[in-house]
C-alpha cells in the first residue's frame, strides 16, 4: 500500500511541473496616428541593421498546478550584440546579475570587474556575456517575464 501511495505521489508531482519559457525579439517603431501624433511602440523585430536596439523578452508561464520556486533564467547575450547597461528588467520581483566569463560566474553590475592589476576595471557593456534573473517563485497558472535590450554592432 505504501509503495502504491509513493508511486502515485511521484506521478502527481511529475504531472504538475510545467513552466515554459519563450523568447521573442522586438524593436521600436514610430507611427503617426489619426491626430498626427507620433506613437512609439515595440513591435516584432523585422528591420535589423547595425545600431538597431532589440528588446529580448523571455516570457515565463507556469501551466502546472503547483508553485514553482527558485526560477533562474540565464540568457547568453547573442554574438554581435552589445548589452545596453541597466536595461535588464523583470515583471515580478527578481534579482539580476551579470557575467563577463560566458556564464561561469555572475555578479551584480556594481561588482562586475574585468582584468587584473592596473588593467582591472568595471566591466563595460561590450564585455558582458550573460544575464541572469532569479525569481523566488511563480504561482500555478501565473505568468511573468524578464527582458533586456541589446544593440546590433
Amino acid at each position, binding site marked *: 500500500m505504501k509503495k502504491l501511495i509513493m508511486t502515485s505521489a511521484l506521478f502527481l*508531482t*511529475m504531472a*504538475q*511541473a510545467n*513552466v*515554459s*519559457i*519563450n*523568447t*521573442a*525579439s522586438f*524593436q*521600436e*517603431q*514610430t*507611427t*503617426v496616428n489619426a491626430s498626427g501624433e507620433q506613437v*512609439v511602440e515595440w513591435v516584432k*523585430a*523585422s*528591420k*535589423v*541593421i*547595425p*545600431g*538597431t*536596439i*532589440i528588446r*529580448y523578452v*523571455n516570457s*515565463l508561464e507556469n501551466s*502546472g498546478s*503547483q*508553485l*514553482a*520556486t*527558485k*526560477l*533562474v*533564467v*540565464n*540568457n*547568453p547575450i*547573442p*554574438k*554581435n*550584440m552589445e548589452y545596453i547597461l541597466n536595461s535588464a528588467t523583470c515583471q515580478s520581483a527578481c534579482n539580476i546579475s551579470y557575467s563577463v566569463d560566458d556564464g561561469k560566474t555572475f555578479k551584480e553590475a556594481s561588482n562586475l570587474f574585468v582584468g587584473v592589476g592596473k588593467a582591472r576595471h568595471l566591466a563595460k557593456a561590450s564585455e558582458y556575456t550573460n544575464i541572469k534573473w532569479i525569481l523566488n517563485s*511563480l504561482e500555478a497558472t501565473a505568468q511573468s517575464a524578464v527582458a533586456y535590450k541589446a*544593440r*546590433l*554592432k
Partner: protein
Amino acid sequence: MRSIVYIFILNLLYAQGVPAGTAIENEAFLNYKVGTEKFSLQSNKIVDIVDQKIDMKIVCQESNPVVVGVGETQRAMAFKLVNRGNGKDSYSFTPIFDSSSDFEVENRMIYQDNGDGFFSVISDTLVDTVELNADENTTLFFVSDIPSNAIDVSANGVKVHSVIYKELLYGESKKLDTYYALMAAKDTALSDMCQYKVSNLALKLEKSATLSSDNLYKGSTIHYRLAVKVVGIGNLSNVIVEDSIPEGTAYVPNTLQLDGVNNGDFNGTAISMNLGEIVQERKSSDTKHLISFDVIVN
C-alpha cells in the same frame, strides 16, 4: 496613410557594422524547482537576420577653391566617396552645378582615382558606376573644362545614387532574398560640391616625353620634360611641382634637373621641385622653367 519610421540609432563607433545576412540568435535557459525536484529547459531560439543598411557619403576634399585659368581643360576637383553601409553596393553619379555660380563649366566628367591621389586622364578611370564593399572608400575627380567667359567662382559637385536601391528614400526598405535593404543615407550625405575659382594668374605645366629607343622595351629610358609656364600677369609664390613616376618604371638617380642643373627631390614615388617665386611681368607663353628627369622601364 500611416507613416512608419524605424528608429535607427546610428552609432558612429561602428563604421561598418555586422554584415548583412548574418543570423543573430537569442536563446535562454531556465532552471526551477517544484518542491524538491529540479527542472531544466531551454527556450525556443529566435533568429533575426541582419538587414543591409544602405548608407553612403560623398565629401569634397578641396579645402580651398581650386584655382583655374580661363580656357583650361580637364581641371579636377577631388571628392571622397565612402560606403557606410554593412554590405556591398554600387553607385552611379550625376554631376551637379550651383546655378547661382558666376559661370558654368563644360564637358563634365567623373573619374575614379587610381590610388595616388593625383588626377591624371591617363592613369585614372572615367566611370559611370563604382562598386564598394562595406566601409570601403574611393576618391573621385569631378573634371571639367573652364570656358573662355569664366569669371570668379563656380560651384560644382557630384550626386551619388545607389544603383541597386535607387528608388528608396530615407527610412524606406526593399525586400531582398533573405533580408531587407534599408535606406539610411539622408539627402545631405548624397551630394557635395567644391568650387572653381578663376584667376587671371595661373601656373601651366606641359609634359612631354622622349624614348631612348623607337619602341618601349624593358630597360628603355624615358626622358620626361615639364615645361613650367605662367598664364596671366603677376607673381606666383611657394611654387612646388610634383610628379609621380609611372607604374612599371623606376626613377634614374641623379637625373632630376631644373633648367639643366641637378636639383629637387625624389621620395620613392614622385619627384618634387621647389620653384619658389615666379614673376610674370607681361603676358607670355615662354617657358619659365624646365624640369626634367629620367625613368627606366622595369
